[in-house]
């Protein structure tokens, strides 16, 4: 493509994730988050050129959940707006594309998800091929276990490696007020726990979380004006793989690899990576696909193992990565989001300070 217009993340806000949000509905969860993100951006709400959100009706179990969520935006006078039935990180991608036109300079991106409203393991089955896969009812943990088993069988990771990812993530989450599963765990002790679905133990699996997050994007001079150290999007790309787990090498993430190449991960000197790896073994697969070296600080926020609100956890990775650039803790970061069974679809961006 032609040289893209410079677009940066200038602010981020999130609701502390919880196991079950019983006080607030989607709209009420969003309102304080949107207010905070917009206030922090320094851009007036009326000046935001585009709004895009991500959510999924199957979490709440009724159609059009995004319609009432729009009330949190206060879309009056009418706004230029769109919605994806995907993680909010993909809404960010759409907003980035929209900003490339050059006629608007800022965009609001948000997502929300209450995973607690149904039996998430079973709800996720509805995401599978309805003719040949869903009727077998392989739940989300069973499919992830299949992938973990394949990875272990390939000799590239062990249950101990996975436990180490889990222990490190939960330890990192101690410093993150927005994560809700955290603690200092001993790997040997974790490995003495029984399997949940072999070879996965409970610690290898993400929590079930409710949450919401919002990001404000700004282009060029506006970003420089409102933010001392914007997190510029140096490259961004997403790819999908065949749906059926049997049609893929589950131990590799070819879509992450292509997206990482297109986003320019290899050419950048990366300090931090926020990877959307709901299961411990998936972090190992993603690191490998992105070619991240040992010096890269992976998921300092605790990642999806510390909090995993569906449809939000990917956008949160972008926010966490950007925050570290904005506040000066990092110079260049990878942000990643995934969707679908066993990392079927992946979005990768390189963010940087300039």
């Amino acid at each position: 493509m032609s040289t893209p217009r410079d677009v940066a993340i200038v602010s981020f806000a999130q609701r502390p994730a919880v196991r079950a949000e019983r006080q607030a509905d989607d709209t009420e969860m969003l309102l304080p988050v949107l207010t905070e993100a917009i206030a922090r951006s320094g851009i007036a709400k009326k000046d935001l050129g585009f709004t895009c959100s991500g959510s999924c009706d199957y979490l709440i179990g009724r159609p059009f959940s995004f319609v009432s969520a729009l009330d949190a935006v206060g879309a009056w006078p009418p706004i230029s707006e769109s919605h994806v039935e995907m993680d909010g990180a993909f809404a960010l991608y759409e907003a980035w594309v929209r900003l490339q036109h050059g006629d608007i300079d800022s965009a609001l991106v948000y997502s929300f998800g209450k995973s607690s409203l149904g039996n998430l393991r079973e709800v996720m089955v509805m995401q599978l091929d309805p003719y040949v896969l869903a009727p077998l009812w392989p739940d989300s943990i069973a499919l992830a276990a299949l992938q973990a088993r394949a990875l272990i069988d390939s000799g590239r990771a062990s249950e101990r490696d996975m436990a180490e990812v889990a222990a490190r993530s939960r330890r990192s989450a101690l410093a993150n007020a927005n994560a809700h599963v955290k603690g200092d765990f001993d790997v040997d002790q974790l490995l003495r726990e029984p399997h949940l679905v072999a070879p996965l133990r409970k610690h290898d699996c993400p929590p079930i979380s409710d949450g919401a997050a919002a990001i404000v994007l700004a282009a060029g001079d506006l970003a420089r004006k409102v933010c001392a150290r914007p997190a510029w999007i140096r490259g961004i790309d997403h790819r999908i793989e065949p749906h059926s787990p049997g049609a893929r090498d589950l131990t590799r993430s070819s879509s992450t690899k292509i997206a990482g190449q297109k986003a320019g991960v290899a050419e950048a000197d990366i300090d931090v990576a926020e990877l959307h790896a709901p299961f411990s073994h998936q972090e190992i697969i993603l690191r490998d696909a992105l070619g991240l070296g040992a010096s890269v600080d992976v998921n300092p926020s605790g990642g999806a193992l510390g909090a995993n609100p569906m449809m939000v956890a990917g956008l949160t990775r972008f926010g966490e990565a950007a925050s570290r650039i904005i506040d000066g803790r990092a110079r260049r970061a990878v942000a990643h989001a995934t969707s679908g069974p066993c990392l079927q679809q992946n979005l990768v961006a390189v963010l940087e300070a300039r």
Partner: protein
Amino acid sequence: MSQLCAVIGIGQTKYATKRDDLSIAGLVREAAQRALEDAGLTWKDIDAVVLGKAPDTFEGVMMPELYLADALGAAGKPMFRVHTAGSVGGSTANVAAHLVQAGVHERVLTVAFEKQSESDAMWALSPKYPFQPPLLAGAGGYFAPLVRSYIRRAGAPADVGIQVAVKDRLHALKNPYAHLQMPEISTEMVKASPMLWDPIRYLETCPSSDGACAMVLGNEQAARKAANKPAWVRGTSMRSEPAMFAGRDQVLPRAGRECAADVYKQAGVTNPRKQIDVAEIYVPFSWFEPMWLENLGFAEPNEGWKMTASGATALGGELPINPSGGVLSSNPIGASGMIRFAEAALQVRGQAGAHQVDGARMAMGHAYGGASQFFSMWMVSSDRP
């Protein structure tokens, strides 16, 4: 800055109550394959796929773009999923056009579908929301009061809706893809059909259809190499407003007016009624034709029904509306907006066959959704901008 974008391939399925000859994947593939053939391209020529559909509950598949990645040749490519309620078919085309205009991709396949026979859309559209008035039985239950309000405000005679119902079904007879084929349609027949949601009769509503629509969008270079004449995208716009607040005018929504003003400005249209040769607008209930004529600036407020009553909106009239038969003749909900956009493009390409508007050069595609609150529109022309 923005690159040019053109429609270089269009494909539609035959719309029907139940396409039990096809799986969901088969349905989208039928439309996509036809769009590729029209463009003179193969699957490998496509850089990215953008899919749209209305609520996932209609088929009972959550985020079906994941499962459809294979059928749409997306493996190894970007695949994107849009959902903006009833306007989604239009928004999906706009999002795909933006990828080309932004210079991200050269050729994008965009597809929208609904396989409504997998469930009962009317009841899927009748959820009980806590602390909100119920939608009652389906979308008609929500929209009938708006129609009554329109009739009262405009002082419209009671039979204008019937006229639209007859006109669009006569148009459908000229469109082989249209679901309803009713050669016997007449004013008496519509009038005699059961009253569902007063004043909307059975034959004044859209059918429930299975179907998919696909387009290949390309940049200038792709348009130059295309097998058939391109339709140039001259403007794209989306606007949203909240569903409910005191004083909101749901009959003549501000979001629709501003969305139209935005695409007209982009396309250089200052007098829509004169400069636009044909429009495909989203009319799921007959009375929405005169209502949208006003919202889109084709008629003054409260005057839209006069334009319809005069015959101006029929094929051969001053401004033909929905020569394809419109949503009243085919309604796979998630695809209905994209069908409007694609039919507008067919017209300026001169490919609309028996329902072609002679010499159409500038056309509008329009879709709306939610509580008349989400709008997506585009303008296409035969002339390169």
